[in-house]
């Protein structure tokens, strides 16, 4: 059953940046866009098991730090080789400066 999990404080993520979040043994990546919207994806790249949180966030895109696979972090869409499979995204919300992520 889906549940909202408190993940971090809104200011824990710099503008246009990403941080890791772990819950129940699973890795996630949390993003803050330049206009202060928050997004969440699976923690790992879909190409190889590399944590996305070490990658560069720019222009609505997260780039995997290992092989430069790029995803639109707002939709999870894979943007071309070497990544062919979209990364899963999760709904987020901010209440009282706390970022929540909805996990299944």
């Amino acid at each position, binding site marked *: 059953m889906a549940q909202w999990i408190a993940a971090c404080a809104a200011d824990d993520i710099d503008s246009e940046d990403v941080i890791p979040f772990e819950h129940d043994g699973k890795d996630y990546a949390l993003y803050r866009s330049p206009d202060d919207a928050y997004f969440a994806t699976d923690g790992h790249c879909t190409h190889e098991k*590399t*944590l996305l949180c*070490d*990658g*560069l966030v720019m222009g609505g895109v997260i780039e995997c*730090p*290992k092989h*430069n696979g790029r995803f639109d972090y707002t939709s999870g869409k894979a943007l071309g*080789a*070497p990544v062919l499979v979209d990364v899963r995204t999760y709904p987020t919300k901010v209440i009282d400066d706390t970022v929540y992520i909805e996990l299944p």
Partner: protein
Amino acid sequence: MSDAIIIVGAGECGTRAAFALREEGWDGRIVLVGAEPPYERPPLSKTGEYKLICGGAALGEAGITFLAGAEAVALDTAGHVLELADGRRLPYRSLLLATGARARRLPFGGAPVHVLRSHADSVALRARLAPGRRIAVIGGGFIGLELAASAASLGGRVTVVELGPRLMGRAVPARVAAVMAGRHVKAGVDLRCGTGVTGLAPTAAGITITLAEGTAIEADVVVAGVGSVPETSLAAAAGIETDDGVVTDARFATSAPDVFAAGDCCRYPHPLYDGRPLRLESWRAAQEHGTAAARAMLGGQAPFDGVPWFWSDQYDYTLQVAGLADEAAREVVRVRPDDTEIWFGLAAGGRLVAAAAAGPGNSVARDIKLAEMLIARRAVPDPAVLADPGVALKSVLRSPVAG
């Protein structure tokens, strides 16, 4: 004229080119000629994992005809025909040579020496790695050091012999190479730089490697990582210009009409470095070349100016290099709060031409990516700003001075 585009070589470059042709809208035939199925080479010197770039189903779905196990033996550039070892003659509209490279061998025999290029090489070597085994690695470049790290991590007693005065002398700046050398020493690897191997001889207990400095090393397993030789024989026999690689222009066109070459086998002039001819041996270059060559085969005129980029995994450390370190006339180092050093190479006029760093995990990736973007824009950043860990590189990228 045939409507087929033929790609010779089903490695990273050739396979990517095949898919890129479809992505670019080519709906004619694509024939991919490969001795082996398309698989990833980077893991061979690291984890040893066998990972396909794509399965047969993906090739089929994209309408790519894969001639598995086929060997190209002759190219008739006037007649636009490729001949295979089994006698088949395949006419083409355009053809891409993505024949890659082979491991360079030591110039002398005396005892069995492993090399690493193919999955079979990796399997043969890994079968011999075990705790306590004495492993001698000849060559302190990327492949040699990744193998040294793999062998040491499996409990081997590893010695690395490097002819040059330090590790990775060709592509990596000294300070960054020193970080990796320190990691190897911590893992117990014996590094012998500045000495060559003069001979190998089998003994009752293994192999004796004699060194130019007069000493000798006893080993159970010897592996050479002494560079690669581009596969140019098909091109050369067809009269196509070669010079330590198949010579191409900046859109990967060879001296023969409608014949292109890309990836490890080609030598192309790089627009970012005054047209300096480069032969790159890297996974990402192979991919990017494949995509660019596909566009060129369909009539694209844009020169390829992607920034050279390498990575290497050794133990829990990753090394990344963007640009060409040997183009640097001076260096600037940023020491981050986590003590990781980011090295920047500037040309005489101040333009950023290279960046490199090594550190745990993927901790250097963002900074090197940002540096790569600065290099691509021919940025002339303020050295004081580059050196200041308090200034985010992202803000340097956004400053008008960098544009």
